[in-house]
């Protein structure tokens, strides 16, 4: 065998291994895509048949939920849709200002050890299991709400406070990245024009980081809408339309988990349909994030 042939063989073998590795990696990528496809397919396949019995309008816009009633079953989830959004937006009202302030502090004000400690604490916050948040909610937050605001303590406000804490890591991390991504020249220019540091932050840096910050908020909404366990433990779980901050509330996710174990027939289907509604909301939110970040990339160019 000549030297040249041996060399060619080695090149061929290398190409073969290279392409084999590519194929394995591709297979893994396909698995995650397939997972999404299958989840979507089966949730819709199990959920959609409900509309043969209940109209879409009734399902989405009726507040009458009594699926186990034999004579006159009710499948209206409006209360839970409203509940989900009510809880989520109050949580944003509490969590976004705090999270944004924390992100500004991390990106612009502090450095060194303080920043390190703060960052690892935020990471820890993201890693705490939601059932632990729920325990904390029952012991501390419901009690606090009951003492300071009255009512039972199992209400929209308690759930929102828990969710506000839970979405902090999402908002802090992504907003900090967005703020750091603002070109240094902007800040330098602003300072050179005689603006104070806070003026530069509020008038120049934040507007420039706007789309990144909005994306972080939308992802926070996604986290809050999808959260189940923590809110289940403090929201009261009554299947009624929430009437105020101190009213008991049931969200879409709570509705699924409460009935999942024993439901059968149309009742079970209606839980899948609730899942479809939740799924569609989360998909819309993801599209929104994509649209916002795309816009940002375009405007940066």
């Amino acid at each position: 065998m000549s030297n040249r042939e041996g060399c060619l063989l080695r090149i061929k073998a290398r190409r073969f291994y290279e392409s084999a590795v590519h194929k394995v990696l591709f297979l893994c990528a396909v698995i995650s895509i397939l997972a999404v496809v299958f989840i979507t397919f089966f949730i819709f396949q199990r959920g959609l048949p409900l509309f043969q019995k209940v109209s879409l309008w009734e399902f989405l816009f009726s507040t009458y939920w009594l699926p186990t009633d034999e004579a006159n079953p009710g499948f209206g989830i409006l209360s839970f849709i409203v509940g989900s959004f009510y809880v989520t937006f109050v949580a944003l009202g509490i969590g976004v200002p705090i999270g944004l302030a924390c992100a500004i502090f991390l990106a612009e004000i502090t450095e060194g050890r303080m920043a390190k400690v703060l960052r690892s604490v935020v990471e820890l916050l993201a890693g705490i299991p939601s059932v632990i948040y729920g325990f904390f909610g029952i012991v501390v937050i419901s009690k606090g709400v009951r003492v300071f605001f009255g009512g039972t303590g199992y209400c929209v406000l308690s759930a929102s406070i828990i969710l506000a804490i839970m979405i902090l890591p999402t908002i802090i991390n992504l907003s900090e990245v967005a703020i750091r991504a603002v070109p240094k020249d902007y800040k330098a220019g602003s300072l050179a024009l005689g603006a104070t540091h806070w003026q530069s932050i509020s008038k120049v840096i934040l507007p420039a980081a706007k789309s990144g910050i909005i994306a972080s908020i939308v992802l926070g909404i996604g986290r809050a809408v999808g959260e189940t366990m923590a809110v289940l433990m403090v929201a009261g779980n009554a299947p009624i339309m929430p009437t105020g901050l101190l009213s008991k509330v049931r969200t879409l996710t709570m509705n699924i988990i409460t009935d999942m174990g024993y439901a059968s027939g149309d009742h079970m289907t209606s839980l899948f349909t609730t899942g479809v509604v939740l799924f569609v909301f989360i998909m819309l939110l993801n599209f929104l994030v994509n649209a916002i970040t795309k816009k940002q990339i375009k405007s940066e160019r």
Partner: protein
Amino acid sequence: MKKSFYVLPIALLSLLVAAGAVFAGSKEVEGDGKFAGDYAMGGSTTVEPIVVSAIEAFAKKYPAAKISYDAQGSSVGVTGVVDGVYVLGGSSRELKDKEIDAGVVPTAIALDGIAVVVNDNVPIDNLSLEQVARIFAGEIRNWKEVSGPDREIVVVNRDEASGTRAAFSELVLEKNFGKGKAKFIADAITTESNGDMVTKVGQTPDTIGYCGFGYIDKAKNIGGKTISVDGSDPTVANVLTKEYPVSRYLYVVSKGQIEPGSLNEAFVSFLLSDEGQQIVEETGYIAIK
């Protein structure tokens, strides 16, 4: 460099093989004891203390049988038995016609009362059955209507999977309003288990709820108390004389008749033995033999 090309596929392959071995292994039976294997039971949270204690005692006789009990509510137990998820289910309510048609067979293992519990801050010791029914139906919304203080009543209810809820509905609400006319107030804190129920009643002022007798001690430990109904205290003695109005049987349910020689038969006959019935009493319920 070349070596690393092998590493990924080989690692993946060995993982697959290992996983296969593990899954295959779990099917195999360990030891040679009677009833060797894994058995899943589940259902009523009221029945849970009895079955869990019974499983511990049963394990001493048949160490090879590994039994678990998953307390998620009676309806979960019955559905689980129909679907074959559980070999036996626990139920704290009567079976529905639909479930009997599906082949579910109940075996009574104990008698239990349902105690009405209130938070310690409610200065009331007795309510009539009618008052209790009207409170849970939402007709009475303030404690002053039952000669208490002028504060709103906070109703704590169970989720719909609960057999205690079904039994309470039948024994209290339907008895007062008539069959099919009983509806719980929707504006109530909904809880997932007897434990969750007594915790929330104990920790929230102005609440009223209900629980199986086995949870009375826990309720008292965390800030709740029981009240008498129609002047009768929730005690075993009062249930036996039928003086206490709210009592029901507790069941284990199986799909089809229990087969002779099966683990189900051994376990159920253990529950009904002197030893099993003693466990029933130790856990706060009422023996039926």
